[in-house]
C-alpha cells in the first residue's frame, strides 16, 4: 500500500503490453476460433471498370465443404451503402458504395461473390469454380484527364468525376490578405507541381473479422482501429439496433490509418453470418489487403508561392487534385482537407488560398494513412522553401528562419485561423544543427562538388509542424464532419485498491496500457502495477471515438485525468469522514489523504490511503450521509484546440551519380512534442514514423497499369523497407509544453512521417541540383535519380508508371540502366 513517490510520468517504463506479444500469447482476430466456426472467401473483380453480365456459382456450390455462395444480387437488399462520415461540401457527389458489387465493378479488387466453407482452404478452392462474365467499360485512371470535359466517367449517374471542390481563402475568411494581389505584386514567384504518389498503409497484420450471430448480441471481432465507430456504423448502415451489436478489437497489429475504416469485408462477414446463423471468419491475404484495403496520399499539387527578394514570403496558393479512387470511404473526402490548414506550416504567410478538387478514378479508394493530409502539405511547403532559397541564392535554413513564427510570438494565429499555442522553432533547429554537424557537412558537400566526386552529398531540411489531437468537436462541426472529437474514460476503484481504467481510445501498438498506467499512477498515487487498462470492447468500454490523428494522449488521456479528478473528489469526502475532519481540511498527496498541516508520511500523521477509502466504500458501513458507496467515475473530454508538435529534421544523403542509388548517411531530428509521458514510447513512435516517411521519399508507390490493375499488390512489389534499407536515426527533443491541455502534451504518432519525406527529397535534390536537376518525383528510385542526372530533365520520372523501382530492383520496363 505504499504510494509511489517518484512521478511515473516521464519515466522510460518498459511496456506492459510486451509480455504477451514476445511470447506468442496474442489474440489477433485470426487467432480466434468458436464452436462451429465456418470460413468465408471473397472473389474479387480483376476488372477495374466493367458491367457484370452474369455470375455462375452453381459449380462452386457443389464442391465438398461449401455451405453457401452469395453474389451481390443475393445481398443487395440488405447491404446498404458503406458510410462516408465527411461530406465536405453540401453539393458533394457521393456514389452508392456497395460492399459487394451488384451489377458493376468500379475498381479491380471489388468483391463480386463470397463463398462460405468448412475450412479456409475449401473456401479458397471454391472461388475458382465461380464464373463471372464482364462487359468492359472505359477505365478512368488519370486524375488530370478525369476532370476534363468529355472525360469517361467512373460513375455515369453522377455526370462528372468531380466529387467536390473545397476552398479556403484567407481574404474571404478574414484571416489574411488576397493571394492574387500578393502574386501580382511578387518580386519572386515559385511555381511548382508536385505529385504525392499513392501509398499503401501496409500494416503487418492483415485484416480479419469474426462475427458470432448466435448470442443475444451480434458480436464482431475485427482488426480495427475504431471499434466504437464501427459499432455505430454497423447499426446505422445495416439498420441493426445498436444495442444488439458488440464490437471487439482484440490485439490489433498496426493500423497507420489503414484500419480506420468500415470495410466491405466487415459488412459482408456480418451479413453472411447473420444469414447463415453461424459464426463466420474472414481473414484477408496480403494480396487482398493491398488490393482492397484503402490506399493513401495520391494528389497532384499545383503550388504558387510569392515572395520578396529578401526572402520574405508574401502569399501561397495551393490547387490540389485529390484521388478518391472509386468510392468515398469513411473519411476519404476529408483527408486532403486536413492538409488545408498546414500548407502555411510554421511560416507567417500574409495571404493564402487553398482549392482542392476531389476526383473519382477506377482505383482502390483512398483514405487516411499516417498523417492524412498533413504529410502532403508539409512536403509541398518544405520543398517550396528549398526552391525559394535556390532562387534567391540563400541558405535554405536562413529562408525558413526569416519566415517562421518566433518563439516569443506564441500564441500565434495563422493565416488559416488556427491558433498555435506554443512552440520554439529556434531551439529545435539549433539543437538539430548541432547534432547534425550542419556546417561541416555543407563544407564537405562543397568539397565533393569541387572535385567532381561520383558520389555527391546533399543536405535536406524539414522544419515542420502539424495539427493533431483530433479534435475540438466544434471545429469538426464547422468542417462538416459527421461526429465530434471528444474522448471518454472511466476509472473503477476495486475493493482491494487496484484500479481499472477504461479508455475509449483503442490502441493497436501504441502502448496505451503502459502510458495510461503511468498517468493514473501519478493521479491517484497508486502503483503502476496495480492498474489495468481496458479498451477495445464496446461492452467493457462502451463509449469512445477510438485512435487516429495522434489523438490518444492529448484527448484520450485527458479524459482519463478528468475521470481521476472525479475519483479523488469523491474519495476526499469519504476520507474526511474517516479522518473525522472537514472536507476542506483534507489534502491529497501521493495516494493519501491527510488533515492539512499534520505533516507527511512517517511523521506519525494520521492518514488514509485511497486504497483504504476504496475498501471503506466497498463495505459501505460508515459513509457520510447521502454519499453513495461508489468511487467509480467517468469523464468525457473535448479538447479546446488541436495540438501543434513541431521539429527540425535534417537529412544527409549520398547519391551515386553513376547508379542513381540514394543512401541516407545521417538523419537527425529534434522534435518538440511538449511534455513526455514515456520517452521510450515516444522514441519508438518517432523511429517508426521516420521509416514510413522515408519510405514515401525513396521506396514505396502503389502503381496501377493502363487497365487499372494494381501491379504492386504484394510485399515483393510494394517496397516496405527492411532493416537493411534504413539508417540509424539520431533523435532528440526540445520541450515546449502545450498550453491547451493540463498534461502539456502534444501528439507524436504522425510527426516522424509528416516531417521526414521532404527532408529526404530535399537532400536528394540538393545532392544533384548542380547537375541541372530541379525535381525528382517520389519515390526517388535509382532509375529516376539516374535519369534525372543523365538527362538533366526537370520532370524526371514522369507520372510514375513503373512498379518495384525502389531498393535498386529492376522495374517492369526493364530498367533504365
Amino acid at each position, binding site marked *: 500500500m505504499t504510494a509511489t513517490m517518484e512521478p511515473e510520468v516521464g519515466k522510460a517504463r518498459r511496456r506492459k503490453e510486451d509480455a504477451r506479444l514476445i511470447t506468442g500469447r496474442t489474440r489477433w482476430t*485470426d487467432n480466434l476460433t468458436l464452436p462451429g466456426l465456418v470460413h468465408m472467401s471473397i472473389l474479387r473483380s480483376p476488372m477495374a471498370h466493367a458491367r457484370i453480365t452474369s455470375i455462375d456459382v452453381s459449380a462452386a456450390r457443389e464442391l465438398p465443404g461449401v455451405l453457401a455462395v452469395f453474389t451481390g444480387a443475393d445481398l443487395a437488399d440488405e447491404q446498404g451503402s458503406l458510410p462516408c462520415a465527411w461530406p465536405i461540401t453540401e453539393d458533394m457527389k457521393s456514389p452508392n458504395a456497395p460492399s459487394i458489387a451488384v451489377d458493376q465493378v468500379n475498381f479491380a479488387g471489388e468483391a463480386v461473390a463470397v463463398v462460405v466453407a468448412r475450412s479456409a482452404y475449401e473456401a479458397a478452392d471454391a472461388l475458382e469454380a465461380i464464373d463471372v462474365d464482364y462487359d468492359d467499360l472505359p477505365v478512368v485512371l488519370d486524375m488530370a484527364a478525369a476532370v476534363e470535359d468529355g472525360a469517361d466517367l467512373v460513375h455515369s449517374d453522377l455526370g462528372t468525376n468531380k466529387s467536390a471542390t473545397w476552398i479556403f481563402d484567407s481574404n474571404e475568411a478574414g484571416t489574411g490578405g488576397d493571394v492574387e494581389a500578393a502574386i501580382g505584386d511578387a518580386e519572386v514567384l515559385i511555381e511548382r507541381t508536385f505529385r504525392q504518389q499513392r501509398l499503401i498503409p501496409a500494416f503487418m497484420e492483415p485484416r480479419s473479422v469474426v462475427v458470432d450471430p448466435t448470442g443475444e448480441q451480434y458480436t464482431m471481432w475485427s482488426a480495427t482501429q475504431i471499434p466504437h465507430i464501427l459499432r455505430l456504423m454497423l447499426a446505422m448502415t445495416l439498420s441493426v439496433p445498436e444495442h444488439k451489436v458488440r464490437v471487439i478489437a482484440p490485439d490489433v497489429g498496426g493500423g497507420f490509418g489503414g484500419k480506420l475504416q468500415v470495410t466491405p469485408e466487415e459488412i459482408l462477414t456480418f451479413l453472411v453470418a447473420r444469414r447463415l446463423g453461424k459464426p463466420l471468419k474472414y481473414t484477408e491475404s496480403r494480396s487482398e489487403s493491398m488490393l482492397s484495403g484503402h490506399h493513401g496520399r495520391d494528389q497532384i499539387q499545383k503550388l504558387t508561392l510569392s515572395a520578396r527578394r529578401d526572402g520574405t514570403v508574401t502569399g501561397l496558393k495551393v490547387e490540389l487534385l485529390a484521388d478518391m479512387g472509386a468510392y468515398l470511404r469513411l473519411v476519404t473526402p476529408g483527408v486532403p482537407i486536413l492538409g488545408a490548414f498546414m500548407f502555411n506550416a510554421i511560416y507567417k504567410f500574409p495571404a493564402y488560398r487553398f482549392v482542392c478538387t476531389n476526383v473519382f478514378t477506377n482505383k482502390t479508394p483512398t483514405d487516411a494513412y499516417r498523417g492524412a493530409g498533413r504529410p502532403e502539405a508539409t512536403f509541398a511547403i518544405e520543398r517550396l522553401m528549398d526552391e525559394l532559397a535556390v532562387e534567391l541564392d540563400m541558405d535554405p535554413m536562413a529562408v525558413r528562419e526569416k519566415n517562421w513564427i518566433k518563439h516569443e510570438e506564441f500564441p500565434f494565429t495563422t493565416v488559416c485561423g488556427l491558433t498555435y499555442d506554443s512552440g520554439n522553432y529556434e531551439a529545435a533547429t539549433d539543437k538539430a544543427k548541432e547534432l547534425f554537424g550542419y556546417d561541416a557537412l555543407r563544407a564537405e558537400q562543397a568539397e565533393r562538388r569541387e572535385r567532381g566526386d561520383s558520389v555527391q552529398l546533399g543536405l535536406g531540411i524539414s522544419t515542420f509542424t502539424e495539427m493533431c489531437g483530433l479534435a475540438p468537436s466544434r471545429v469538426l462541426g464547422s468542417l462538416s464532419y459527421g461526429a465530434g472529437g471528444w474522448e471518454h474514460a472511466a476509472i473503477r476503484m476495486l475493493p482491494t485498491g487496484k484500479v481499472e481504467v477504461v479508455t475509449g481510445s483503442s490502441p493497436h501498438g501504441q502502448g496505451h496500457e503502459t502510458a495510461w498506467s503511468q498517468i493514473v499512477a501519478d493521479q491517484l498515487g497508486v502503483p503502476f502495477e496495480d492498474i489495468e487498462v481496458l479498451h477495445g470492447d464496446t461492452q467493457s468500454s462502451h463509449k469512445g471515438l477510438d485512435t487516429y490523428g495522434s489523438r490518444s494522449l492529448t484527448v484520450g488521456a485527458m479524459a482519463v485525468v478528468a475521470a481521476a479528478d472525479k475519483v479523488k473528489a469523491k474519495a476526499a469526502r469519504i476520507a474526511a469522514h474517516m479522518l473525522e475532519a472537514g472536507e476542506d481540511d483534507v489534502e491529497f498527496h501521493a495516494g493519501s489523504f491527510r488533515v492539512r498541516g499534520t505533516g507527511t508520511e512517517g511523521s506519525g500523521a494520521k492518514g488514509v490511503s485511497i486504497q483504504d477509502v476504496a475498501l471503506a466504500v466497498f463495505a459501505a458501513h460508515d459513509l457520510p450521509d447521502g454519499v453513495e458507496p461508489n468511487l467509480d467515475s467517468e469523464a468525457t473530454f473535448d479538447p479546446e484546440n488541436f495540438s501543434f508538435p513541431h521539429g527540425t529534421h535534417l537529412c544527409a544523403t549520398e547519391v551515386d551519380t553513376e547508379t542513381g542509388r540514394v543512401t541516407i548517411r545521417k538523419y537527425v531530428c529534434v522534435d518538440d512534442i511538449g511534455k513526455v509521458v514515456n520517452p521510450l514510447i515516444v522514441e519508438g513512435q518517432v523511429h517508426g514514423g521516420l521509416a514510413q516517411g522515408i519510405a514515401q521519399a525513396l521506396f514505396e508507390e502503389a502503381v496501377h497499369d493502363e487497365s487499372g490493375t494494381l501491379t504492386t499488390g504484394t510485399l515483393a512489389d510494394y517496397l516496405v523497407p527492411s532493416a537493411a534499407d534504413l539508417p540509424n536515426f539520431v533523435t532528440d527533443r526540445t520541450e515546449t509544453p502545450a498550453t491547451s491541455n493540463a498534461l502539456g502534451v502534444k501528439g507524436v504518432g504522425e510527426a516522424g512521417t509528416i516531417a521526414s519525406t521532404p527532408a529526404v527529397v530535399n537532400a536528394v535534390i540538393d545532392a544533384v541540383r548542380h547537375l541541372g536537376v530541379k525535381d525528382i518525383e517520389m519515390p526517388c528510385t535509382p532509375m529516376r535519380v539516374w535519369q534525372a542526372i543523365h538527362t538533366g530533365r526537370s520532370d524526371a520520372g514522369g507520372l510514375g508508371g513503373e512498379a518495384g523501382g525502389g531498393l535498386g530492383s529492376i522495374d517492369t520496363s526493364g530498367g533504365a540502366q
Partner: protein
Amino acid sequence: MRITVTVDGTKYADDVEPRQLLVHYLRERLGKVGTVVGCDTSNCGACTVHLDGHSVKSCSVLAVQADGSEVTTIEGLARDGQLHPVQQAFHDNHALQCGFCTPGMIMQSIDLLADNPDPDEKAVREGLEGNLCRCTGYQNIVRAVRDAASHMQGGAGPEAEQVTSVKAGGAQ
C-alpha cells in the same frame, strides 16, 4: 499423409493434406497461433519458426516437409517462466510496438545470433532483411539483438538454440 513432428517439445502424429503449409498446420491443427501469417509471398517473415534448429519461413514449408523434424515456435522459447534472452532484450529495448512481426523477428534474431554471436549493426540489419516491421523503424530491434548478444556471450548463440529444443537432436 501421415507426419510425426515435435513442436515445442511435444510430439504430434497427424494426417495432413500434402499441400498444407507448415504455418497452417501449426496454427489450425496444433493451435500454435503465436506464429502468424503476414503475407503470401514469403517477404515478411512474420511466420518464422525454427526447423531442426534453423530459421525457416513456415509459410514456405509444407507440413509434410517437417515430418520427423523438430519445430520450435515463439511459444516454445520461454522455459519455466524464464524468457529467452532475445525475448527479454526485445522487451528491455522497446523493440516492438504492435507486436505482429515480433514472433518471427525474435526467431530470426536467435538464428542470426547462432551464426554470429557478436554481430555489428550492419550484420544485424542484413540478417533481419527478410523480416519486415512497419512500426519500429528497426532501430530498437537492432539494439535489442545486439543487447541480447552481449547477454549471451562466449558462444552462447548455439546454446540458445539448445534451450529451445528439448532433445537437442543431431539434425543441425
